[in-house]
């Protein structure tokens, strides 16, 4: 059978084709996002509830001492703002990746996966697109938070961008990795309980880790080992024009590991193949 070849010689793909594909995927994700106004509003309301209600109520309970990157005493609202930015990305990453599991989305996933471009590249584009959407959500949040006296130095809005891109990619690829392992997604609740809540609460998003250490050393170590803590700290420092190198290293390493894991999981000979027939009655 080796004599069977076609006259079209394989030609691979040009850089322009890769670029077209990337912009196409980001463009579509953006369009879909604009059409899903409820998703945008709930993505915005969630952190604002924390900011307006939780932080206001909690302000008197928890004293914040001066810890880097802060140079003065700060209000609790100011402390949790970076954690809330990361929370937006956490939800977005889980939602956009897990939505792939839904049947309707499975259809959309199919159109993506029959693209002739390498599958790893397609998934990477998808992650970038999801991250871009999370950036829109975060900056909308920051705009409102500004009126609530969350006012970093102006340059902070710029320096936080690369941190947000990296943390967005990390959380998106984590979601994609989880989505590949889930057979059926009856509800978002399971992921909420087992991924989002533990990650969010066992992190430095709501309380500085030195306070956690006073209460429970074990929880402290758990928080330190939580990649989400490092995403929060990376964002927190970048928001004030600084770099937290340890967090940067952890987030970068986790991004690479999760992304490779997700790409392997969506390799047709592995992850999805273990699943039952999709759409085949």
């Amino acid at each position, binding site marked *: *059978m080796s004599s*069977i*070849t*076609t006259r*079209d010689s*394989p030609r*691979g*793909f*040009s850089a*322009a*084709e*890769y670029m*077209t*594909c990337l*912009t*196409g*995927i980001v*463009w*579509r994700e953006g*369009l*879909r996002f604009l*059409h*899903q106004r409820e998703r945008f509003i709930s993505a915005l309301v969630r952190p604002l509830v924390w900011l307006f209600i939780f932080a206001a109520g909690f302000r008197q309970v928890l004293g914040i001492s001066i810890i880097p990157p802060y140079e003065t005493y700060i209000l609790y609202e100011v402390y949790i703002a970076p954690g809330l930015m990361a929370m937006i990305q956490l939800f977005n990453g889980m939602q956009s990746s897990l939505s792939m599991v839904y*049947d*309707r989305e*499975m*259809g*959309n996933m*199919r*159109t*993506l*996966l*029959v*693209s*002739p*471009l*390498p*599958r790893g590249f*397609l998934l990477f584009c998808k992650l970038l697109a999801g991250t871009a959407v999370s950036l829109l959500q975060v900056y909308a949040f920051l705009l409102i938070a500004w009126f609530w006296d969350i006012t970093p130095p102006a340059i902070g809005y710029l320096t936080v961008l690369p941190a947000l891109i990296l943390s967005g990619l990390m959380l998106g690829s984590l979601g994609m990795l989880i989505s590949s392992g889930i057979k059926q997604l009856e509800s978002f609740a399971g992921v909420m309980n087992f991924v989002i809540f533990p990650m969010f609460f066992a992190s430095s998003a709501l309380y500085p880790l030195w306070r956690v250490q006073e209460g429970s050393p074990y929880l402290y170590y758990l928080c330190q080992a939580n990649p989400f803590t490092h995403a929060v700290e990376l964002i927190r420092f970048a928001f004030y024009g600084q770099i937290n190198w340890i967090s940067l290293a952890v987030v970068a390493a986790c991004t690479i590991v999760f992304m490779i894991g997700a790409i392997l999981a969506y*390799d*047709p*000979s*592995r992850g*999805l*193949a273990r*699943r*039952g*027939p*999709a*759409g*085949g*009655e």
Partner: protein
Amino acid sequence: MPRLEAAAVPAMSIDGVSHSYGPRRALMDVSFNVQPASFTALLGLNGAGKSTLFSLITRLFGIQSGRVGIFGHDISKSPGEALRLLGVVFQPRTLDLDLSLTQNLLYHAALHGISRREAAARSGELLGRIGLSERAGSKVRDLSGGQMRRLEIARALLHRPRLLLLDEPTVGLDVKARADIISHVRQLVTEQGIGVLWATHLFDEITAGDDLVVLHQGKVLAQGPMSRVITDAGAQDVNTAFMRLTGAQTMPGGGA
């Protein structure tokens, strides 16, 4: 059994493909070819393994054993070249309902690396051919079932594939829409020389000149030109031939 006609690279060759979901065997040693410029009907009841086969060809699942080639390109070894020559219409709808017709087409073109300008030109042309030019800017959600299917076919043709797979494309459509789609796809075969694999359980969608592959419980029971399959089964029509071959008691959609 390789066919030896002149320069006969089949549009698609399926060689000894088997697939299991755990202990359940969905496909058993399935082999058949689709020739260029031919209409091959993959006939089977629900659960025969048609959708599994489609999932393997489109790389949704990995191939456990056997080989799928598209114009000689092994789908596992050089998926890029194989998928480039392949257009697919899946059974479940896979359009973005909230996007416009044009936006859906442009997205698909981007996935194939087709530049924006070229994509816009081809989209306009294809929308014209399926008679939906005036609807180009409306949301897909507002289309009828038949129009959506026509759009999906147009989308599958956007990157100019030479092989088109359709998985029960007429499910849920009314008589008129069904007839439109069948005649459109048959035109693609005769006018553009596209090889078509049409999965169905509706006997009346098949006509005398078609190639037929009868798939039942994961096995190919018969294949070849329709007339031969019927004679070999000692029957007068597809309906009876299918019943004899499978021992089926029911005739879904038979002769409707």
